[in-house]
């Protein structure tokens, strides 16, 4: 028996043809094929919708002909924040359809079943869809002491990851923890936390960093895999280029104030009230690659910089250890301790005095020489 296609699934759910086409448009947008999901979802002018026709058609064809994409979602050293963000994403239809109705098979937080039942189900799914399912990882993986710092059902997360990764068609790491280690990896990293791509090296891992990851970016990547059967183009940190090609700074609505040198100095001064640049308050926008400034959050309502808080750089590796959150980015990561500077100065004095003393010991001082001898030596020179 052949698997029912996604379209058939959706029809079974009571979706109309019209709603289906709308969904295809939203998916095309979420993949960044033309523009971002919220823009399309909010109802575009006709000429723009036409522009998207081909992209939406491609999506429609794929959904009509392809079977559902099973997803196994594993949570390790995480806070479920990425899942949380996804469930509150501003494209509820999209998330609902892609994750709940279409595909999600195992999710510790969202699945209704629990305990041995769901673990057995997971094993069955992994066997049934071997080589076909998408594996989503949320949270870092501790590798110190054989990974005992995070266990589920008595098995270490390292073990669970390797087992699930073996049969996965694609691996998507969501959130800064699963991608770059995030908070668990912050200095001194007692559990030896690592990102997925540091452990799984024989398969492509798509990194969707962020704290949490932007839901539209996640669904966009998943939709891309669903529609094209391939992973999107990735950058050097395995992030999809569609969403991570530009910095927050490049697309920031406060950018003109940066150029004009107008900065908020504190969180409650006139500059802050006027919406000036937050660079002085520690904004990491210039080195942070993500789509917050374009896709935004909560149905395109706002994003941290817009609402008055500097970018923390949460989609970059080691953002917890990259200097103070509220310290200007140009400032050194480590503020030199006064003691260190003192020691350096003392070392300089000791060295200088030592060399000076050695030099003096080598030649008699000018004052001790007779005047004639001085004149002689001056003449010789």
């Amino acid at each position, binding site marked *: 028996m052949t698997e029912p296609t996604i379209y058939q699934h959706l029809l079974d759910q009571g979706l109309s043809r019209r709603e289906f086409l709308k969904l295809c448009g939203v998916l095309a947008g979420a993949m960044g094929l033309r523009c971002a999901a919220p823009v399309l979802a909010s109802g575009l002018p006709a000429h723009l919708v036409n522009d998207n026709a081909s992209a939406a058609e491609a999506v429609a064809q794929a959904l009509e002909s392809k079977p559902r994409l099973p997803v196994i979602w594993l949570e390790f050293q995480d806070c479920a924040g990425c899942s949380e963000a996804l469930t509150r994403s501003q494209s509820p239809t999209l998330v609902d359809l892609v994750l709940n109705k279409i595909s999600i098979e195992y999710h510790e937080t969202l699945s209704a079943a629990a305990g041995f039942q769901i673990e057995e189900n997971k094993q069955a799914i992994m066997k049934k869809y071997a080589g076909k399912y998408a594996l989503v990882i949320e949270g870092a993986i501790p590798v110190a002491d054989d990974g005992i710092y995070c266990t589920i059902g008595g098995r270490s997360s390292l073990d669970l990851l390797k087992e699930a990764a073996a049969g996965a068609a694609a691996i998507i790491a969501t959130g800064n923890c699963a991608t770059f280690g995030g908070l668990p990896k912050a200095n001194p990293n007692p559990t030896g936390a690592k990102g997925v791509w540091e452990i799984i090296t024989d398969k492509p891992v798509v990194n969707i960093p962020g704290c949490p990851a932007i839901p539209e970016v996640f669904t966009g990547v998943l939709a891309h895999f669903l529609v094209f059967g391939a992973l999107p183009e990735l950058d*050097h*940190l395995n992030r999809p280029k569609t969403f991570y090609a530009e*910095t927050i*700074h*490049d697309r920031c609505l406060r950018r003109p104030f*940066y*150029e*004009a*040198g*107008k*900065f908020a100095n504190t969180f409650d001064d006139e500059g802050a009230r006027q919406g000036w640049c937050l*660079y*002085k308050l520690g904004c990491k926008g*210039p*080195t942070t690659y993500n789509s917050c400034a374009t896709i935004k959050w909560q149905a395109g309502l706002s994003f941290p910089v817009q609402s008055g808080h500097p970018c923390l750089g949460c989609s*970059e*590796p*080691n953002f917890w*250890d*990259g*200097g103070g959150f509220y*310290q*200007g*980015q*140009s*400032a*050194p*990561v*480590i*503020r*030199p301790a006064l003691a*260190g*500077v003192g*020691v*350096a*100065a003392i*070392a*300089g*004095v000791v*060295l*200088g*005095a030592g*060399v*000076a*003393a050695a030099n003096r010991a080598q030649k008699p001082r*000018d*004052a001790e020489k007779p005047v004639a001898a001085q004149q002689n030596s001056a003449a010789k020179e």
Partner: protein
Amino acid sequence: MDWNAILEFARGTFFQVALLVFVAGMVYRLARILLLGWKPNRVTAKGSRLGGVGMSFLKGAIIWPFIPWVKNTASRNPVIYIAGGIFHFGLFTVILLGTAHMLVWKSLLGFGWPTLPLPIVDWLSAIAIAAMIGLFINRLINPVLKLISGPAEWLNLLIVFLPMVTGYIMTHHLFFRYEVLFSLHMLAVDVLLIWIPLSRISHFMFYFFSKAIHGAEFGKRAVTP
């Protein structure tokens, strides 16, 4: 290549090390010079040495350099006078009154100050870079400068030039990703910090000592500059 990791190193460990080397090196140089001692003074002073120092600073460093017809350099070597002046003025304005730079001072000293708008800082740095290129060409073609320029002088130019150029390209988001240029800028600054005590760029500190000593000598002889 993970440039964010390089940036973290350049802003973190390497900067820390460079800063400590800079402090130790400058203190070493200072100790060496102070311990050379004064020449024995066998002449009765005709004037005030302290007054001489004051005049030396007031006229020699603060007023006269800005009046071209008083300075011999202006008429004898106008390129050095104009380009050198613009270079120093631009460099120090950018280092002290550029917002990003002020934040470095703030993190080191614990207090900050108002800064200039980016366009002004930007033009000053562009002019300073142009002046530096002018000084470089001058050193290439001036027969006397050519004779007294060794590898250290050329390195001085290069090591000061690199942070300026990388900083300028970085603020304009040209050619490379921001963090690549940020890393190169910080690496160049770190190298500069280490290089300063070993080179004549240390004149940023010793200039004031020599000015003071000249002033004292002038004052002693009552021939204030």
